């Protein structure tokens, strides 16, 4: 991708990033620059290394090689909590609620720590994030009692409450009905308009392409295609890794 005019640093840049677990190489030499303002979609078959890539960006896994840069600053050696405070918010594919806390408290703790807000400002930010995710009515429900859809929404609300500059979404549309998916697309599109940079991993490609400006396809830890969404989805390489089934 060509850098944005004005020469500002990309919001996220991966330079030659690799991740291995012992002899198992999950990600091999991925280089990727996401200019500020661009929403990036990530597709790829199961086991392609998508979630690992997201972990390497957010810091839950440390890159075995290469470097990760947020807004021009090298964060490769930074801990996940530092990266969060620097502006990376993430959701988990399998929700990880703080089960004994209410939905509001989940968002509040994110606003207080990740967002570095105090008092009323933190409370307001938490409420805003819940409103965006459509969770305000459930504020006082212990998050452990939320059904799956609610937990998925809370993943997003909590990530938003950390006041991210870069929001990483990991398969939040899976299992939604068409109407729910449409609502989610609307929500994420409006987040994008407020200036939050988004990287979204998703199997539900139909939802994904309505939001993202650019799509990359990851297969066996390698970026095999990078470009405009429709172009990537039609490409031979991508159809081949999906065996022509999943994207139809």
């Amino acid at each position: 991708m060509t850098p944005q005019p004005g020469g500002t640093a990309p919001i996220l840049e991966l330079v030659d990033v690799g991740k291995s677990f012992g002899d198992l190489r999950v990600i091999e030499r991925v280089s990727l620059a996401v200019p500020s303002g661009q929403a990036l979609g990530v597709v790829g078959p199961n086991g392609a290394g998508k979630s690992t890539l997201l972990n390497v960006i957010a810091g839950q896994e440390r890159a075995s090689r290469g470097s990760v840069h947020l807004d021009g600053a090298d964060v490769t050696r930074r801990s996940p909590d530092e990266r969060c405070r620097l502006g990376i918010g993430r959701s988990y594919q399998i929700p990880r609620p703080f089960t004994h806390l209410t939905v509001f408290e989940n968002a509040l703790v994110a606003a207080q720590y990740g967002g570095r807000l105090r008092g009323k400002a933190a409370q307001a930010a938490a409420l805003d994030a819940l409103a965006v995710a459509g969770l305000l009515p459930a504020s006082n429900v212990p998050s452990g009692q939320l059904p799956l859809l609610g937990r998925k929404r809370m993943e997003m609300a909590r990530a938003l409450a950390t006041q991210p500059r870069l929001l990483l979404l990991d398969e939040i549309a899976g299992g939604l009905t068409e109407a729910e998916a449409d609502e989610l697309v609307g929500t994420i599109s409006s987040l994008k308009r407020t200036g939050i940079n988004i990287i979204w991993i998703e199997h539900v490609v139909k939802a994904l392409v309505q939001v993202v400006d650019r799509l990359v396809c990851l297969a066996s830890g390698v970026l095999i295609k990078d470009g405009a969404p429709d172009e990537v989805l039609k490409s031979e390489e991508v159809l081949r890794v999906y065996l022509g089934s999943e994207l139809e």
Partner: protein
Amino acid sequence: MTTTTQPQTTAGSVRVDRDRGRAMLAVGLALVALVALAAAPYFIGPGITTDWGNLFYLVTLASMWNLLAGYAGMLSVGQQGFIGLGAYGVFVFNDRGVNPYLSAVIAAAVVAAIAFPVSYLAFRLRGGYFAIGTWVIAEVMRQIIVRFESLGAGKGRTISAYTEDPILRKAYTYWLALGVMAVALAAGYALLRSRTGLALQSIRDNEPAAGAVGIRVSRVKRLVFIASAAGCAAAGAVICIRSLGVAQPNEIFGVGYSAIMIFAVVIGGIGTIEGPVVGAVVYYLLDKYFGQSGVWYFVGLGLVAILVTLFLPKGIWGELASRWHLSLLPVGYRTRSTPHPTGWLTARDHRP
């Protein structure tokens, strides 16, 4: 930078409530109780107040273990290490001319300082390994203490300089036990109502996710580990002063204290402030009335533990609180005037 877009439901109309009124009321009542208990030695004989001192250190210990396990998810089986150090700390400072009561306070502070490097060792381990690791650390502490000839070298020893008058001595000891308990409970409550309390519970519920929302996980855990060590050390010092010394290092450093703490917290209700107090009272009463029944006492304790875990899995207080929505000491947040929940969300608030 805010994340507001155009929410369907407005966040602006929502008020956040911390139950300040009820918290103040509970704190007020606690203060009244504290004053009444502090005045007790003037009205009640030393036999009874000395017995209450027993309860006070049990409450302290249970609360400290609950802080670790119930709020920070650290299942320690090694708090007896800090209890023992606190008890022996009394000798160290008393021998240098400090009165035993002040020695107890100094010992607690010194043990807190010792807990800091120890936490780096213990935090390398997780879950069950952490539990065993803390036990080993406690054992190492005992082994080190018994090397010192001046500390009785494994045979125990007595406090050399204490208040001569037995009535005064018992009153001072009672006030120390009461003060330690009051500080432990108050500090615990303040911590849990603070921002850090929310972080702690997040760590307990899901450590990786706590890191992902920006919480410095190790730092928060360390704070609690040190606070709990200090509280246990203070309780250990109380135990030492109550019996004018340590009879057996094996006893004060014994894993039995961990068993008592776990028993009281599980019986009372883990992860609540009130639970450990209830559990400590139950243990105190069982010990007082059946403690001399030999082996049947332990059979009975085991039976109580089994029955409570089977039929009251949240503990006595936990069960009462969730059944009647009780909370004497609220720590959470509640939003008011939210619209009615719709469809897929559970409407009822089941939180204790």
